[in-house]
């Protein structure tokens, strides 16, 4: 009993790794630009297709294919940011959010035209041999994906916390005019935030596709990421780490002990309850404001 619970728990936490990555992407864009980016799911889906194409059609080694997919993800994001979002600077936030929704639909449509609508499984590139922690068994794919997610998330958090660029993003998030007056090129920060989110999304998308296959609808998993972000509090990088793993765990446990029907909405019930008690989310920054 206990062993089974532990096994499900570890599987759940491991599947939360992908949520963490894509939620970090949401948060970094939201912090820097105040835009809630509904195209995040499609920013995961397109690189997953590019990865599939590079591996299966071109025949690249998976490491190269991964690099191609991440680069492709960055290019897509740059097009989105430079061609679409940048023209929208200064418009009401609602408009910007609607624009990301629209961009997401367009991206889904393009993917459907090119690759069709069936779910395609990726070639195996992650070792499948299960990993044993004592006598607890973890499926190999999941274990290695989680490790990959942890490395990427860890690298991102270190970059955000300690690099010069990280300071610029945080300053812009706090007060963009002040950041600009102090010499930060705020437009460059916007671009950087989108690009970072693009990389996070690409890795998250490929990990999601490696478990569930890829289709233009892959991006819809990003909707579960909304629960993660709301729970974490829109702006908390640390909160996302905790909330992402928690939601992953909760989904798996609910799926295992109740049913798939419960799985699809129980996380949202929990999120709603938390938000009723603490509207800024569990870890949302309480703005320090003192005049």
């Amino acid at each position, binding site marked *: 009993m206990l062993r089974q619970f532990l096994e499900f728990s570890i599987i759940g936490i491991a599947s939360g790794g992908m949520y963490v990555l894509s939620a970090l992407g949401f948060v970094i864009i939201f912090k820097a630009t105040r835009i809630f980016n509904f195209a995040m799911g499609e920013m995961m889906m397109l690189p997953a297709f590019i990865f599939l194409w590079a591996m299966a059609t071109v025949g690249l080694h998976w490491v190269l294919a991964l690099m191609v997919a991440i680069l492709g993800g960055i290019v897509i994001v740059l097009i989105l940011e430079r061609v679409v979002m940048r023209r929208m600077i200064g418009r009401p936030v609602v408009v910007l959010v609607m624009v990301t929704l629209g961009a997401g639909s367009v991206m889904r449509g393009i993917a459907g035209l090119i690759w069709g609508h069936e779910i395609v499984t990726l070639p195996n590139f992650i070792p499948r041999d299960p990993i044993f922690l004592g006598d607890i068994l973890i499926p190999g794919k999941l274990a290695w994906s989680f490790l990959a997610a942890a490395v990427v998330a860890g690298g991102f958090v270190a970059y955000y916390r300690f690099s*010069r660029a990280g*300071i610029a993003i945080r300053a812009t998030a706090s007060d963009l005019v002040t950041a600009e007056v102090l010499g930060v090129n705020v437009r460059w920060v916007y671009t950087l935030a989108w690009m970072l989110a693009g990389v996070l999304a690409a890795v998250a998308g490929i990990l999601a596709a490696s478990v569930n296959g890829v289709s233009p609808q892959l991006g819809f998993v990003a909707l579960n990421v909304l629960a993660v972000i709301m729970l974490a509090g829109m702006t908390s990088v640390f909160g996302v780490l905790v909330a992402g793993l928690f939601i992953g765990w909760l989904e798996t446990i609910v799926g295992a002990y109740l049913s798939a029907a419960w799985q699809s909405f129980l996380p949202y019930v929990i999120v709603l309850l938390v938000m009723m008690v603490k509207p800024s989310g569990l870890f949302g920054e309480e703005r*320090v404001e003192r005049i």
Partner: protein
Amino acid sequence: MTDLTVENLSVVYGQAIAALDDVTMTVSEGRMTALMGANGAGKSTVLKAISGVLEFERGRISTGRVTFGGQQLNDIPVHRRSRMGVAHVREGRHILSNMTVEENLDVAGFAAPPRSKAETARIADRIYGYFPVLGERRRGTAGYLSGGEQQMLAIGRAIAAEPRVMLVDEASLGLAPMIAEQIFEILGRINADTGLTILIVEQNVGLALRYAEYVYVLENGRVALEGTRDTIGTREEISARYLGGDTTLTEMA
């Protein structure tokens, strides 16, 4: 010469509100210059036109130009002006409240060429030398500093950018007279020690006349009076005539 000049400057907010009308000023290199005037006279607008912050407030230079060391600034983005050495301490402090005191200073490093760790520390120490409170609270959240301390941080942050000209908008606003005096004393010392060019906007005429060598007075968006500290008139005259001060003082003078 790296003088800062404003030539025939007119500024409009949102297509309609004229805030400045044909303002011409020179802020000479190495000097402390003061800009005074009643509320709404256009003082802050002059500083915003120089630093470029107007862009963020739907303001626009309709005629005239701003130059620094002979180079026209009008169309240069704000962050590039700050990298050229223009530091703007805005009205209302604008501390990055969720970040620490130290991180606030670090952000200003973006206005200067990349620095080594040692150099960053040396500059921070210099600022903590001017404002010891900031040193004591360097790891503390900036938003929890008192108003006066936040003003010190705003000025310290500008110093951290190692500017060639510093614009300071109402440094004394809302501060106890002693703290205001202390801040001006430090500005005077920085000006004397390093020859940093400083343009202050100040409502407290006494303070301004004590520290600035040259004074401009704005009235309804125009320069109404200018001159050196010694020729421009007494504190009472200026207060009464331009700042809506006590008129009985003028009669006495």
